């Protein structure tokens, strides 16, 4: 004999509740993005104006963070030499999920002015999934801020899943890294 009190049908499946939680999480993640400023190249000079009174990224909830463990965004600003890329991959793997990569400048896109150099890689998203590219050989601050807002949009409509891509086809990325860099985890005489 079913009780007469009104009990709603429990038809929300577990995946459903998870997705609901994930959306709420997205709202928080969107509104409090922490940057790990991996200032590899010359585009890093665009960041101070982004933080100070002119553009003030803090009103978007964004702020600089000291260590990869605490950061959400890995901000690649400028060209990536082989040695820097190895450290970048190591740091990327240390960040806590979900994590995003924002690449400033044209160097991560196609090698930029260093496209023909033996030391600089030409396309960043072969090695690390990049969510937002901000083109320009040194994009001005407004472009950078737009890039961040685009990232927020992507998080909102759940398309900023570079980190999931990194999980799923980790082998492909790994193979690319080995092909270009030889080996990621290097030993040298000072740190052994």
């Amino acid at each position: 004999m079913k009780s007469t009190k009104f009990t709603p049908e429990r038809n929300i499946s577990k995946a459903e509740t998870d997705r609901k939680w994930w959306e709420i999480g997205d709202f928080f993640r969107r509104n409090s993005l922490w940057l790990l400023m991996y200032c590899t190249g010359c585009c890093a000079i665009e960041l101070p104006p982004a933080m100070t009174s002119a553009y003030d990224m803090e009103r978007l909830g964004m702020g600089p963070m000291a260590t990869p463990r605490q950061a959400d965004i890995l901000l690649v600003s400028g060209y990536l030499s082989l040695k820097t890329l190895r450290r970048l991959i190591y740091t990327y793997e240390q960040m806590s999920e979900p994590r995003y990569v924002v690449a400033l400048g044209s160097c991560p896109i196609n090698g930029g002015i260093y496209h023909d150099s033996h030391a600089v890689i030409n396309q960043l998203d072969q090695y690390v999934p990049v969510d937002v590219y901000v083109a320009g050989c040194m994009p001005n601050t407004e472009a950078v801020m737009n890039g961040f807002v685009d990232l927020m949009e992507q998080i909102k409509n759940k398309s900023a899943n570079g980190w999931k891509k990194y999980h799923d086809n980790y082998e492909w990325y790994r193979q690319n890294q080995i092909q270009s860099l030889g080996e990621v985890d290097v030993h040298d005489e000072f740190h052994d």
Partner: protein
Amino acid sequence: MSITILNFLIGLGIAFFGFVLQTSIAGLNRKIVGRLQKRVGPRWYQEFLDIFKLLSKRATSHGWIFDFGVIMALGGIIATAMFMPLTSTFNAFGTYDNFFIFVYLLAVGMLGMAMSASGSGNPWASIGVMRALTTMLAYEVPFMIIILTIIKIAGSSLTGIQLYQQAAGNNWFLIALPLGGIVGFISLMGMLGKKPFETYIAPAEIASGPMVEYGGKQLGMLFIMHEITVFIEVSLFVHLFLGGATNIFIFILKYFLVYTLANLISNVNGRFKIDQVVTFFYKWPLILAIVQAFIAIYLGWVI
């Protein structure tokens, strides 16, 4: 005084209220500091967003001591907050709010965090913990001398101290013991880790010190712990020096003023080296504390 589950729940309520109050005031303060630097500044609930964002992320853990330390830290701090009286009439455990509980249960929180930080295996964390303990050694002694004077005058239960200050004829200890108030505020800056004494979370030098290895939920829990610690320390200052509060709104007002003043001073200061912190605290604050204690106890001049 029989202790029932109700007391525990009230205590938990106080702790939660403390967390919410402090987080929102911290948000407001970030706004004020933003406006100070002529920029827009974040929303007032930005701190909440940060904390819940951290709790939603998937973190990494370095072993059972790394997690147990965080749990012990947050547990210790919540326990301390449960004892905290909000107004002179309202507190969870009646007359058991002895001053020493706060100082020493706070130490349990510090121990938990220190343990898990150095358990994370990162040298930055150990250096951060060393600096935190050295700073604690620095600001604690002058503060305790002033507390000695207050307890000598008004007994060691916080509500007792509040009632003493609110009684007719007596005024706030900030006015009754002026030097004590100054030393208390400087020690509060040390306790909160505000800028001149922020050597143990120095983001530039040791990559945010003990917090270097925390991400996701551990960092979120440590942020909650930090907020509640700040609540405890600032409300201690309010109860000890500003005469506590008869109703909740006065308490919130005094709380806001003290925290904002501390924050503003913090934002115009550089950062001390760790041995400068120790020599600073053992020079003027200690001398002031001794003079104040001498005047208050032996000469009996309590204004």
